[in-house]
C-alpha cells in the first residue's frame, strides 16, 4: 500500500512537470507573435514522453 502511494506520488509529480512544460510552451507560442504555432514541437514531445512515463509509473 505504502509503495503504491509512493509510486502514485512519483507519477503525479512527473505528470505535473510534463503538463507545466507543455502549458508554458503553449502560452509562450500564443503570446509571442514571432514564434509560430508548434515551432516548439520538440518541447511538446519531451513533455509527452515525461507524461507517458508518469502515467506508466503506477503500473510498474
Amino acid at each position, binding site marked *: 500500500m*505504502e*509503495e503504491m502511494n*509512493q509510486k502514485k*506520488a*512519483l507519477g503525479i*509529480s*512527473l505528470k*505535473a*512537470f510534463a503538463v*507545466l*512544460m507543455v502549458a*508554458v*510552451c503553449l*502560452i*509562450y507560442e500564443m503570446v509571442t507573435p514571432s*514564434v509560430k504555432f508548434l*515551432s*516548439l514541437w*520538440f*518541447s*511538446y514531445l*519531451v*513533455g509527452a*514522453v*515525461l507524461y507517458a*512515463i508518469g502515467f506508466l509509473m503506477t503500473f*510498474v
Partner: protein
Amino acid sequence: MLAWPDIVIIIGYFVIVLGLGAYLTRYIKSQEDFFLAGRKMPWWIVACSLQATDIGPETYIGVTGIVAASGLAWLNYDWLPACAIPCIISAWFFVRHYRRSGVYTIPEFIERRYNAPMRVLWSVLFIVVRTLTLGVVIYTMALPLSLIVGWPWWLSLLVAAGVTGAYCFLGGLTGVMITDVLQFIIMIVCAVGLIIFSLREVGGWEGLHSALPRQMFHVVLSRTEGTADTWWGAMFIGTLSLGLAYWCTDQNTLQRTFACRSDAEARTALVVGSIIKYPMTFIWGLVGLCAAVLFADVIAENPDNAMPKIVTSLLPVGTVGAAITALYAAGMSSCDSLLTSMSTVLTRDIYQRFLVKNKPDMHYVWAGRAFIILILICGTLFATVVFPVFGAAYVAWQSVLSYIQFPLFATLALGIFYKKATALPAFVGLLTGSVSAFVLDRFVGPVVMPYWWSFVWAGWAGGVLTAAIIICGSRFTKPYSQEKLKGLCWRTIEEKEETTKLLIDWRLWSIVSLIVGVSLTLIFWLVL
C-alpha cells in the same frame, strides 16, 4: 539570458520537488523510516537512486567537457572497471554482510567488527571528507547555473541548497530516494533530447565519425596514444581501486541498499544500476564529442563550457528549461544523498552512540533533521567563502583525500574476509597506508616514473600496504572470538542459497552487466 518559459519551468520543478518531499513526510514515524526509508524500498527505486546520486553536476558538465577535450576513454570511469565490476563485487561479497548485521551505517559495522575507536575514526574521516565534497557539489551546481540562467550566484546557490535541504528535512531517505527517481527520469529524457539535436547538427553518426580523429572514439588506448591517466593500464586496473572504494565501502552509496526490502533486491539494485549507467554516460560522452566538432573554440578555452553551450545553443525554448532542470537535478540528487548519509552518521555514530543515549525514536529523527540543517550551513559556507578563495588549495586537498579511499576499502574487506584481523593493526594500517599513498603520489611516483605515474597507483599502493600491515600485525594480537565475528565475516554462519524471482536475480543481471560492458569495450576498441 533565458526566455521566461524556461525560468517558469525551473521554478515549477522546485515547487513540485518540495511538494513531493512534503507529501512523503507522512511516512516518517521512526528512525528506521527517516534514515533507511523503513527498509521497504523496491529494487528499481534503489537502482535509479544509486545512479542519480553517482551522477552529480561535476559528472554532467565534467564528463561532457573531458570527453570533448580528450575522447571516450574517460567513460571507463563510469563503465566496466570503475562501476560495473565494483558494483558486482559489492553485490556478491559485501552488501549481504552489512544487511545481515542490521546496521544503519558503515561505521556501525566497523565497531561491531573491530572496536569503538575504529568507528570514531571512520566517522570523522567520512564527515570531514563529505562536508568538503558537499561544498563543492553546491558550488558546481550554482556556478554554471548562474551563468546560464542569469541569476546572481548567491541566489542560484541558496535556491538549490534550500530546496534540497527542505525535502531531505521533511522526507528523510524516503523523500530523497523518491525525488531521486523523478530527477533521474528527467535527466534521461533530457539527455536523449540533447543527443538528438547534437547529432542532427553534426550530420548524424557518419558526420561525427568523419569529423574527429579515430582515437577520440576509443576506450582502450595504449600509453603512446593516451596519457598516464587514460592508457588502458590506468583505466582498467588503476581505476578499479576507486570503484571498489566507492561501491563497497561508501556510506553515501550503501545506505540505499540498506533501505531495500530484501538482500536479493539490494544486490539486484546495485547490479542493475551499473547497467543503467552504460547508456547514460555514453549519451553524455556523445554530446561531448558533438561539442568537440561544433564548438572547438569554446572547448579549447574551457572544456567545462561544452554542456552549457550545447544546451543554450541547440535546444528550443521549453526544453532548455527542462535540460537546466536536469542539471539542477543532477546536483540535487548528489547533494541530498550527502545530507542524509552525513546526518545518519552524525546521529547514529556520534550523537546516539556517545552523547545522548536511550531517548525515544523520534528524538533521533529530529536530531537527524537538525544535523541536516547544520551540514547544509557548513557546506554552503564552504561553497561561498572557502572555495572561491582557496579553490586551488582545495583541489590539492581533495586529491589528498582520495589517498585514504583504498586503504579504507582494504580495512573493511579484510574485516570481512580475514577473520584474524584485529583493531590495532587495522588502525595503524589505515593511517600508514593513507600517508604512504600521499607520499608516493606527491614525492616519489612523479620523480621515479614520470611517464607512467598516475594518482590511481598511489591508491593501490596505500591499500596493499594497509592490507600487509593488517595481515602481519594481526598475527601478533589476540584474535576475536567466533561469537563476536558471527555473521560479520565471510562464512561464519551457514549461507542459505536464496531462491528469487528471475527479475530480481542479481546473478543473472551480473552476467548481463558483464556482457554489455565487455561488448561495449570491444566495439569502442576494435570496431570503431
